[in-house]
């Protein structure tokens, strides 16, 4: 009767199993790192645009802000960019979680880390007016962006 190790070896032969090549694992790990880095880059762009749209609000007078601050906030918060930012923060976390040592970090710590890095990079880019460039590029070269970015302009806050 076969020993257990002989049974395992027979099964390996029967199924034609061979060790997967080293490059297979390198590619797999690279995919997750690429996803994480790409997501952080897109999240950074989203934050820099959101930062620009929210704080460099043209035509918003101090009187309007004082009169109805909540309405002003609701109308000026760039929800589209914040949604994009949130999605790519989540995607960056998932990418990092799947890397070789990603399991070592608590979800809250990893997500906070991604948010801090993304916001810091976004603010850094805005020192060079990057958010403004992205905002006006999309305004002039796409049709959907104008509608999306101004989708909350007519929102009336019921209080």
């Amino acid at each position, binding site marked *: 009767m076969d020993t*257990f190790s002989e049974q*395992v070896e027979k099964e390996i032969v029967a199924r034609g199993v*061979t*060790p*997967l090549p080293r490059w297979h694992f390198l590619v797999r790990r690279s995919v997750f790192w690429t996803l994480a880095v790409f997501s952080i880059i897109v999240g950074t762009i989203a934050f820099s645009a959101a930062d620009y749209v929210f704080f460099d609000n043209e035509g918003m007078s101090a009187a309007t802000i004082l009169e109805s601050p909540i309405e002003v906030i609701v109308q000026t918060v760039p929800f589209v960019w914040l949604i994009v930012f949130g999605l790519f923060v989540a995607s960056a976390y998932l990418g990092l979680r799947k890397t070789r040592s990603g*399991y*070592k970090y608590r979800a809250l710590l990893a997500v906070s880390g991604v948010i801090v890095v993304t916001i810091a990079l976004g603010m850094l880019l805005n020192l060079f007016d990057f958010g403004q460039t992205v905002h006006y590029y999309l305004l002039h070269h796409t049709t959907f962006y104008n509608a999306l970015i101004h989708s909350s302009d007519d929102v009336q806050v019921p209080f």
Partner: protein
Amino acid sequence: MSLTDQQAVEATLRDRHAFSILVERYQAPLLRYIQRLGTLDADVAKDILQETFIKVYLNLNDYNPTHPFSSWAYRIAHNETMIHFRRQKHRPVVLDPEQYTTLFESIPDELDIEKEIDVGRTSVDVGQAIAKLKPVYRDILVLRFFENKSYDEISYILEIPNGTVATNLARGKKALALELKNKYITDI
């Protein structure tokens, strides 16, 4: 001279027959571990063990020597067992008391409940108490007290942060102590 695990992995990558060294070295502890996770049927446990070794062989080039080979094999065995439970859509909660003798002996030191449960405590009680715990606590207690794994190894095997290992281990011990105290109070 016997080969180290790392040498055996390298030998297997050159010659498939060398894999028997690793299989023979780890088949007994991995089989016990699979059974302690709740696989009661010996044939099913052996099937899971075979799948574990096939996965180990398939992924040999992914083995990272910065961690012990045994931890890597335990991680694969754990994942294969969980895949089996998911396919069955059922994880047994009635466990084999025979598996709990080790923990039964170490309970007074580990759980600090010696005085309260000293009378009438048996390995069957321990087995029943462990069976009532959430799987997340049960898995950690099994690795810590039966397999004698360090926090780092448990973190690697279960793919959870070290802090979570410490938290869940403390909660698991507390929950087990509570179960045993309740059992004792109910029985007397």
